[in-house]
């Protein structure tokens, strides 16, 4: 089972990221859960969302405290919240950043983990015209860890964003191409 924690800010669509990933996994015949952190969400405040993916039925419904993967949608969050807290040894961190993975490993103080970084905000601004990185970051995630195929995920992206499907998918593919993984 792979457990994933998404860090975002209220309104950035972290919950949507978690859901799209789960829907794609379920479509592939896997088992998956997507759920938000159950708090009082406010626009701009740090929020969490979670996805579990497994080949077997998932009975566990506890929170995720020791994720295999952490995805940070907003670059400012790294300083605001302990994004790698509880991350398993050898886990993966996916960051929205201009800086490369090597620099991040030093900054996070975790040389055991794999880091993927992509300048998701620039991609989102260029392709969508808004700094919403939830779909973009999924591209970087799949580059580092092929949890699901691109196609089913793109299908759900198109369903969720029918009016800007083409732009979202382009941004998603660009992140898949441009993400650097170390």
């Amino acid at each position, binding site marked *: 089972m792979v457990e994933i924690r998404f860090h975002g800010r209220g309104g950035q669509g972290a919950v949507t990221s978690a859901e799209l990933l*789960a829907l794609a*996994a379920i479509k592939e015949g896997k088992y*998956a*859960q997507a759920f938000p952190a159950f708090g009082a969400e406010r626009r701009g405040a740090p929020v969490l969302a979670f996805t579990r993916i497994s080949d077997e039925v998932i009975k566990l419904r506890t929170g995720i405290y020791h994720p295999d993967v952490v995805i940070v949608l907003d670059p400012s969050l790294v300083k605001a919240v302990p994004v790698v807290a509880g991350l398993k040894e050898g886990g993966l961190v996916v960051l929205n950043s201009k800086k490369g993975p090597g620099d991040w490993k030093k900054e996070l103080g975790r040389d055991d983990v794999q880091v993927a970084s992509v300048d998701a905000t620039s991609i989102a601004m260029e392709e969508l015209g808004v700094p919403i990185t939830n779909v973009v970051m999924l591209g970087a995630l799949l580059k580092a860890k092929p949890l699901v195929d691109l196609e089913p995920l793109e299908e759900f992206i198109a369903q969720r964003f029918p009016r800007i499907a083409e732009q979202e998918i382009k941004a998603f593919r660009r992140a898949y191409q441009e993400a650097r993984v170390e």
Partner: protein
Amino acid sequence: MAKRTGIEVSIAIAEAARQANVDVVSAYPITPQTHIVEHLAQLVADGDLDAEYITVESEHTAMSACVGASAAGARVFTSTSSQGLALMNEIVYLASSLRTPVVMALANRSLSGPISIWNDHSDVMNERDTGWISIFANNGQEAYDLTLMAFRIGEDRRVMLPVMINFDGFILTHVIEPMYIFDDEEIADFIPPYEPVCVLDTDNPITMGPVGVPDVYTEAKKQQEIAIRESRPIIEEVFEEFAQRYGRRYEPVETYKADDAEIVLLAQGSVIEAAEVAVDLLREQGRKVGAVELRLWRPFPFDALREVLCGTSIKQVVVLDRCISFGGPIGPVLSEVRSALYLEKDRPMVVGVVAGLGGRDISLEEYVEMFDVGEECLRTGKDSGEETDLVRIVGLRE
């Protein structure tokens, strides 16, 4: 054929109400609500469900509208949670005593104060004696299936009682997971149109809900008690028909690896599946443990519970309550399980724990701790007395 699909549990429950072709939905659509009534409102507005959607100014009125609509012969659905249900309370009693088979999807959540709308079972336990049939689901699929079955059970002419389907708020309602959703045609003949016994009709006037003077009140209450007691075989009939048609089997009391278990954890709702993970973990260490799910809460399945717990390998039951009976016997589930076993000669010891209040997560380690409580109790041979009467909360910060 039912399609396997990733879907939010709340949306699936709303779909169940649509597939049951409900005539009237009444709900109070703000906190504490779920996407259930939001989705139904959308379906009605889009013309995908031919129903009357009655928005009201409070949950008290929501249930009043439901009872009135049901008395007029409509198939009625509502959903609520937490303080919403508490505000309905007065009319919840009327629904059962007037024998109006309203179906309620109840996303189990806590009661204030301190102000909380997170998950526990305080809301449903407050309704324990309202005379509704009350059934627990432990995952999204079960919540969907049981919502469909609730119409068949409640509207059966041998039953004619309201039914509440319980499923954990947030833990289930806000989760997307894989479920099998029926094609409309596939489920349509499982739920035929509702045929009420008697209806409010201006051309053929009858009185429903008159004053119960002391001369008749006792007899009316006796009839109500007989009605819910006698609903039990019909509930099982519906479970059986569902299993025959669709392959998923439901029982009033269900067990997991309890056949040779010495210690079992007994609980309701989504915690059961997590408890099963703990059982597997402890089984690997050679501990003889299992889990028991009290699915049917009302009518209480005395015989099925005794069959599982008495005269078997089980020596110790740990009951997990998701709310506190303040100043009372720890929690309502413990109280009832103990009471059900009291007269049995060959019965296990029963001890209670409380956990998961107001959205407090229960970790896997804490489920293990609950089995440890059972082991300690079994070792000392004490399941009653001052120490065990204290409310023992697992996951409490000291």
